[in-house]
């Protein structure tokens, strides 16, 4: 019944201490997992499975890790290996597990003015963009995508001097700016295919192993953050990496009707190399 539900909600959210009767878990996550709608599916199933209510804030990898360090999250889902390593090394995170992957790809105007399509590597594609003078739009926000982009530019011997727009925004916004400005950009497939109303861009370089995008889940270390709900966090990790959880991830299709994430937890040795 909606009324009792609302009353319950209001009580719970306004009172400083949540009732112990309901177990809950706070997740800080990168935006793409949320914006595609995957988390809605996972949260519902998780609740049904364990009775634990999953709450999440979708803020981007950098901010998510910061929130976790500040003790405001119990578990994180992120996709930037370097930042994750730092997080683990500083002792804030434990039990990192790879849960899924998809791919980055380079997209550009449909007429591909830089003739990047058909390149043999990402570095080559970027090099063509650079030499053509067509603008490249970068997120420029130290996100997982941005970090990867910088790595790729390093392989392509440096980013363009002028035809390089840094948006400092999320993937969706950056894609839109690339479309408006008829530029190229690096995007993850989930956002690209999940984004409604985006026209004028097409993938020019994709499905390459060097563009793999790994999502992982990390529990917050209760030894470091005593308030962290470690038990619930581990339950969530267990759920995500369980065959059922992996199945849900694999079967998830966004609005576009394509599979957006590839389950990875069962891949042998994945947590060692990715």
């Amino acid at each position, binding site marked *: 019944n*909606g009324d009792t539900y*609302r009353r319950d*909600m*209001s009580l*719970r*959210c*306004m*009172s*400083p*201490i*949540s009732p112990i009767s309901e177990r809950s878990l*706070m997740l800080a996550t990168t*935006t793409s997992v*949320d*914006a*595609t709608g995957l988390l*809605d599916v996972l*949260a519902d199933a998780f609740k049904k499975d364990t009775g634990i209510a999953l*709450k*999440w*804030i*979708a803020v981007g990898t950098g901010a998510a890790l910061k929130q976790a*360090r*500040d*003790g*405001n999250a119990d578990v994180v889902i992120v996709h930037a290996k370097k930042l994750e390593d730092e997080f683990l090394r500083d002792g804030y995170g434990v039990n990192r597990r790879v849960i899924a992957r998809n791919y980055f790809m380079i997209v550009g105007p449909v007429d591909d003015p830089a003739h990047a399509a058909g390149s043999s590597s990402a570095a080559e594609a970027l090099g063509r963009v650079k030499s053509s003078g067509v603008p490249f739009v970068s997120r420029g926000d130290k996100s997982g995508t941005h970090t990867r982009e910088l790595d790729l530019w390093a392989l392509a011997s440096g980013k363009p001097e002028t035809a390089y727009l840094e948006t400092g925004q*999320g993937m*969706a*916004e950056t894609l*839109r700016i690339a479309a408006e400005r008829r530029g190229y950009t690096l995007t993850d497939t989930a956002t690209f295919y*999940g*984004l*409604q*109303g*985006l026209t004028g861009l097409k993938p020019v370089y994709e499905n390459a192993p060097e563009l793999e995008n790994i999502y992982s889940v990390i529990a917050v270390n209760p030894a470091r*953050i005593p*308030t962290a709900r470690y038990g619930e966090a581990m339950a969530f990790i267990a759920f995500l990496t369980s065959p059922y959880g992996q199945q849900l991830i694999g079967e998830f299709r966004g609005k576009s009707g394509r599979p957006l994430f590839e389950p990875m937890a069962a891949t042998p040795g994945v947590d060692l190399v990715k």
Partner: protein
Amino acid sequence: MIFRELALAIWVSLKTSGLAALIASAIAVPAALFLAGRDFRGKRLVLLINQTWMAAPTVVIGLLFYSLLSRSGPFGGLGLLYTQAAMTVGQVFLILPLIVGFSYTALRQVDKRARLTALALGATPRQAGWVVLREAKYALLIAVLAGFARAISEVGIAMMLGGNIRNATRNITTSIALETAKGEFRNGIVLGAVLLVITLGINLLVQTGLRGKDKD
């Protein structure tokens, strides 16, 4: 977005921002009355600070309260972060200077003789204050409603301090932000329209209710 979630988001918006407007008004209107009533050294400075405060971006207020309310912050023990209470607190802080500024202008509009006449007829200073408020009733209403409008339309604080948690702290504006991030612009605009219609309704209700039949 399903209907139940929309209804909940509307409810969260109304509750947190309505409360914020009430609390902020309860502080700001007396403060404005005090400022409007007398001239003292440092009054210009107070007004200047108030004016500057109006320029505090929601994100910065969000950050500020985040660092206070975060588990690692001084008030972390309260567990207020990512609750509607935190949103309300942040919004109170956001709209305070707006309501002070608006009310100050509104109260300066009251003829100085109103207070004096009330005192001359035997009012206590507090009663005279009420008289001044009553004479500026409609303009104060606009001030409070402007504060409410500011609170219900802001997104930075709701996002940072509420966390846009589904079924808990997600309100209309954070929903709009989410829809926008998803590229669902149409949904964003529809939600915006819903927000405006609700505000229109509230304005209509409050104005006709409190204004009654008397002329402005």
